């Protein structure tokens, strides 16, 4: 029986999925050019050309839509396509005369083409209320509302540089929003509730150990071992909840969204860096989160208007200084902006190099 069951085979070998122009020119590409929004060509040493058409995707897709993509791949690309690390769909063509028709079909299907070069690409995001127990906000809903608002930056509006937006629905930060030009982060603001019978589902020592700020202590309630939480010391990370389902965090009144800016991943020009807090709290206001949409647009526009060529958000802010960033965006500076975790001291301004 064990022999019948296939395990540990790993994914299919990618080589079997590469279009022939790639197989032929693998590792021998010479340069690329962006032909128009969402379309680029890679030229090989051999002179062969590979055209890429990139289409936006909601990431959450039904099998029906995926089959439509498969049909388009058959129609235009000998059955070949790929997805990008930011969840866009890329159609890989050798015949550039087919590009217009492909784009028209994609449009028909509701998928804008763009996101290449100095553009806003798709928003890396997570599960939200669709599937995760930990979510402090929805993911797909905000992404849809924000991209609706910003889509012209995807489809071709000129920009100084790349702008990467990411969203995570809780501090676990699936999707690594912590290094994004703009990060939208779901946050809880109320300490976990302690459900009865906690000792039956969780190991109390593990629960206590899980708290980074040591806010959890053992306790006894009505003769049952449980925990108590020193609310002063809780900073809502939800790690205790990850460890123990009897400590739910979600709270309709207090959950919401914070906005972070100025992170990046690439090593181009400046080193990779974390995003910094811009707006400590915005309410969950479904279905279209207008406060969040507005806040993101405002930041994008300030950057769009003032940044120099190739300047990512963080590089731009570094040049003008954070005080000016707050002034230009009109965001109020608050106590929450001041770090108070481990490395806090290093974020204090330790020079008199100031604009007055």
């Amino acid at each position, binding site marked *: 029986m064990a022999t019948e*069951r*296939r395990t540990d*085979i*790993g*994914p*299919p070998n*990618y080589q079997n*999925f590469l279009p022939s122009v*790639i197989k032929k020119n693998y590792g021998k*590409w010479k*340069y690329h*050019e962006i032909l128009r929004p969402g379309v680029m060509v*890679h030229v090989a040493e051999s002179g062969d050309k590979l055209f890429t058409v990139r289409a936006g*995707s*909601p*990431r*959450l*897709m*039904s*099998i*029906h*839509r*995926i089959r439509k*993509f498969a*049909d388009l*791949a058959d129609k235009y690309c000998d*059955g*070949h*396509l*790929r*997805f*990008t*690390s930011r969840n866009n769909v890329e159609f890989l063509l050798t015949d550039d005369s087919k590009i217009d028709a492909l784009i028209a079909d994609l449009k028909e299907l509701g*998928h804008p083409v763009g996101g290449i070069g100095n553009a806003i690409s798709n928003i890396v995001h997570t599960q939200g*209320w*669709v*599937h*995760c*127990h*930990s*979510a402090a906000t*929805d993911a797909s809903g905000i992404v*849809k*509302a924000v991209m*609706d608002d910003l*889509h012209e930056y995807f489809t071709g509006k000129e920009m100084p540089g790349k702008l990467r937006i990411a969203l995570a629905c809780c501090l*676990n*930060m699936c999707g*690594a929003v912590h290094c994004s030009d703009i990060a939208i982060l779901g946050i809880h603001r109320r300490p976990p509730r302690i459900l009865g019978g906690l000792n039956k589902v969780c190991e109390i020592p593990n629960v206590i150990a899980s708290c980074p700020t040591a806010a959890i202590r053992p306790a006894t309630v009505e003769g049952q071992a449980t925990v108590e939480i020193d609310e002063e010391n809780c900073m809502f*990370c939800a790690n205790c909840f990850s460890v123990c389902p009897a400590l739910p965090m979600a709270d*309709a009144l207090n959950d919401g969204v914070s906005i972070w800016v100025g992170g990046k*991943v*690439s*090593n181009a*020009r400046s*080193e*990779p860096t974390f995003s910094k807090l811009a707006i400590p709290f915005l309410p969950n206001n*479904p279905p*279209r989160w207008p406060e969040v949409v507005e806040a993101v647009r405002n930041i994008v526009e300030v950057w769009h208007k003032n940044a120099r060529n*190739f300047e990512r958000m963080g590089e731009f802010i570094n040049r003008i200084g954070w005080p000016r960033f707050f002034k230009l965006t009109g965001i109020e500076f608050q106590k929450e902006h001041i770090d108070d975790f481990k490395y806090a001291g290093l974020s204090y301004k330790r020079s008199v190099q100031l604009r007055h």
Partner: protein
Amino acid sequence: MAEPGKNGTPMLDELEKGPWPSFVTQIKEAAEKNKMSKALLSLLERSYHERIGHWKHGGIVGVMGYGGGVIGRYSDLPEEYPDIAHFHTLRVNMPTGWFYTSDALRTICDIWERHGSGLTNMHGSTGDIILLGTTTDELEPTFAELTANDFDLGGSGSDMRTPSACVGPARCEWACYDTLALAYDLTQTFQDELHRPAFPYKFKFKCAGCPNDCVASIARADMSIIGTWRDEIQIDQKEVKAAEEAGLNIQRDVCNLCPTKCIEWDGKKLEIDDENCVKCMHCINTMPKALRPGKDRGATILLGAKAPIVEGALLSSVLVPFTKIEPPYEELKDMVERIWDFWSEHGKNRERVGELMQRVGLGNFLEAIEVEPTPEMLAHPRENPYVFYEEYYEEGDEEEEEEEE
């Protein structure tokens, strides 16, 4: 409110408006033929009204013999939404580089039509194909069909996670090593580590072909392998001139933005002081026809990136400043094994390898994994004078010491 079609989904309907493709439309498409998706739509509408999620984590579910690859999920309103009382996801290991044939895609769709909600994420943040939601009973049959069609599960829990790679040499002229080959090889070599969680916590590999890091490896991989080179940037002077003529302000937008100011342009010739070039890619990015990475290529290996939980977010930091990346990758894999050994022995529960490195100190960590310290591993040497000098002379040693002088 509980059943769509009764009160409908007025809030979600709002999210079908607007130019960006709508996930609501996708759920609706699936819901037409699938009761799980139908129930999901309804529950989600409820979440939108209540501003709160309705999912619980709970008991471990999975496929036989594997400890990872399935995320168990339960609604906290099972009576009202019985069709999604269980709603587990399967993480299916994507083909490296996210390349597909239309047939392969259809195969996945067909399997998922038979066994699950018909909803997917293409792809999850780690890179897997996410098959979004099914019942416990369907897990094993789905798995059987997947493996019969050469697909397998990815990681979850305290195991190695599905390695990912940028498009690399398949379509990018800047790939300094074969990211796809390495990611695939690691995936195959460590199938056991991927499927059977035995680490203190998760471990992620990401392979980026050059310092642009198009898989964000330095921010989200426990081990980030980022291509680079150590000889001179290849320059085509004619194309430099052409780039300027096409409108690029080389002085302002290239030279002035070079992090070490090691690139000069006099209107005729571009000169790069390669000894001081830190391989940031900026000049190459701005003139893809004129400049190319050098020919002596390899990668920098970095360790330790992660999200904030528990001890704060980390970026990966340099472990091997430069190494050739060539099959069968023995040296790299040996190092990985040494790291895993040390971590497995000394890591605390839910302690990522980066946090362990921080806790014991990079110096001790290097000793444990038998890697020599080099200045490239640091932004700068220590500022604080609290040095744990490891040895001191006892009185008896005095004479020897005197003699040494």
